[in-house]
């Protein structure tokens, strides 16, 4: 009979007991970094497919009018419009929440937007969230501004999945309580068609030390990126093209937000990992009311190549699965969504809501995606599928989204804000 070994420290709460190894051996035909070297025929085929995809993309982009006029100039939005409503949110993989959300735009014609949320989960995830966010705080140069978010979060029974392509449909409970702050200076030019940003996050909470005692813990994280947005609207685009790239960056050990303590088991030492995410979306109008959104995403993670652990670099946004269901070092996602508009344009000015209810939007979507520890053809094999329908309420510069999606692991119910892409 096999004798089990007990390697050290695999995960947050498992201090001393790991009884399973982490990673399957790399397939043959790959170099030390685990990247397959394709042969000449394979390279030709890849070039042909890439060329065809690029041509198709260009044709679709041309149909989508690559540089359409903005339907709405974000910087000219009316001042002091607001929404304060009791709300239910459903975020698969996190929980179902009941709370109050507040949103106010262009406060005192300063350009500053504000959002706040008080929410508590009403399922068994036992999560409470208190959050406050300020956006578009103008700095000294035109187009240069600052976003700031702060939140206190208590996770009583969050259920997470193991990373990895073969991750089972079996959750692992996590308990934590922490504060998180996020500071994001950003530059937005050409009616926000170009956005460049740097994001600095600061986590402050508790973790377990090697003796199993709770100890204070804090850590910075950083990322940066840019978005090229050649669409007719930032919030609800109906024609045009949007491309974005985001990368994790080396984070400082101290900042005006706070100072790092030690590294963590709970969230892992992520400083030695570099995750890059790429996203391209084409919005194609078919008629006055009907349009399609075609989204392509990929993420890559480098660092810790010699580790036996599976690296959860990024995760797939497939709506038919809980959030975080599929994560690994590399990932690919493609989604197509048909959107049908039902314009209303009704002015609301009552105690809790002031603004324009622009209309409803009905949607049907189909998505595929896969994750893999290696960047090779396996990434597009045995894809996960997800499909569903949804309805959105378009209120001023806010999209309230209700989606029902399904996959081979059952249905998921999303009630949240903003388009999926």
């Amino acid at each position, binding site marked *: 009979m096999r004798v089990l070994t007990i390697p050290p420290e695999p995960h947050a709460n498992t201090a001393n007991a790991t009884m399973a190894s982490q990673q399957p051996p790399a397939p043959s035909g790959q170099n030390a970094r685990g990247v397959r070297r394709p042969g000449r025929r394979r390279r030709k085929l890849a070039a042909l497919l890439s060329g065809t995809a690029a041509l198709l993309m260009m044709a679709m982009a041309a149909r989508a009018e690559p540089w359409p006029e903005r339907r709405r100039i974000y910087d000219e939005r009316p001042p002091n419009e607001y929404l304060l409503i009791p709300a239910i949110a459903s975020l698969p993989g996190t929980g179902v929440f009941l709370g109050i959300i507040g949103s106010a735009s262009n406060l005192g014609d300063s350009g500053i937007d504000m959002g706040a949320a008080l929410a508590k989960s009403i399922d068994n995830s036992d999560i409470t969230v208190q959050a406050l966010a300020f956006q578009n705080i103008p700095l000294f140069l035109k187009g240069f501004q600052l976003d700031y978010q702060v939140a206190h979060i208590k996770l009583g029974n969050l259920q997470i999945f193991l990373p990895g392509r073969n991750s089972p449909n079996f959750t*692992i409970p996590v308990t934590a309580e922490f504060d998180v702050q996020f500071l994001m200076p950003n530059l937005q030019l050409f009616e926000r068609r170009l956005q460049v940003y740097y994001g600095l996050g600061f986590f402050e909470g508790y973790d377990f030390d090697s003796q*199993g005692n709770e100890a204070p813990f804090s850590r910075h994280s950083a990322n940066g990126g840019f978005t090229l947005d050649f669409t007719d609207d930032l919030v609800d685009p109906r024609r045009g093209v949007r491309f974005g790239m985001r990368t994790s960056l080396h984070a400082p050990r101290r900042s005006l937000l706070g100072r790092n303590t030690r590294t963590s088991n709970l969230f892992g030492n992520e400083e030695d990992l570099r995750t890059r995410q790429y996203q391209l979306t084409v919005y194609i109008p078919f008629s006055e009311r009907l349009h399609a959104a075609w989204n392509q995403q990929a993420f890559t993670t480098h660092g810790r190549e010699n580790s036996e652990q599976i690296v959860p670099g990024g995760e797939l946004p497939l709506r038919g699965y809980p959030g975080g269901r599929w994560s690994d070092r590399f990932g690919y996602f493609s989604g197509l969504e048909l959107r049908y508009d039902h314009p209303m344009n009704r002015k609301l000015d009552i105690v809790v809501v002031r603004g324009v209810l622009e209309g409803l939007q009905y949607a049907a979507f189909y998505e595929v995606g896969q994750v893999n520890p290696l960047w090779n053809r396996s990434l597009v094999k045995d894809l996960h599928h997800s499909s569903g329908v949804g309805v959105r309420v378009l209120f001023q510069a806010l999209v309230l989204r209700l989606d029902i999606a399904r996959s081979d692991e059952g249905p998921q119910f999303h009630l949240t804000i903003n388009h999926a892409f």
Partner: protein
Amino acid sequence: MKLPGLNILTVLFRAVRRPLLRALLLLWVAWGAVACGQPKALEELDGTFGAGSGGSPVNPGAVVTLPLTSGGSALGGLSYDGAYFFQIPTSDESVVLSDSSGSVMLIVAPISGRADTPCRFQAALLARDRGYALLAAGDRKNAQGLEFHEVDLGPGADFQRFYCTELKSHLGILINGVSNSGNNLGTEQVHFVLNSVQP
């Protein structure tokens, strides 16, 4: 007298009434379509361990009691039938028990944090990396009234069960049962060990 709150609701409802009703009807139909055919869930475990069945009966005269520690401090203890199990020496605070034929092994290791996390984590790792099937999971109590989280895994290289319980604040133990047969993990000898665990 009209209540102002009712006015607000009336204005909101009139604004979105017809299209929203249509949308809700569409979603209701869609929900009915997607909610059917859900994948089979794991068997849920509950109740108590009981005395177990099959295998050799426990010899009361040969019972050995072992202390359990974590970081040098006492956690509690467990007992086993010394005529059936023998202890394999280890270099750390874990305890490894094996029967003489090598068909059943129990590995006891200290854990920290909430007890169900390492249990489910270890089981998920085996399912992901070694092809085990997840058969059942849930909470069961031993004869001392201690609640254990249990996860059962089906045939891979062997059969495995994980039992986790908290003995002190944030500290507890994980018991990993390993056997070449699923029945061997439900015997009187194994259940005697599980039922003996106490803080």
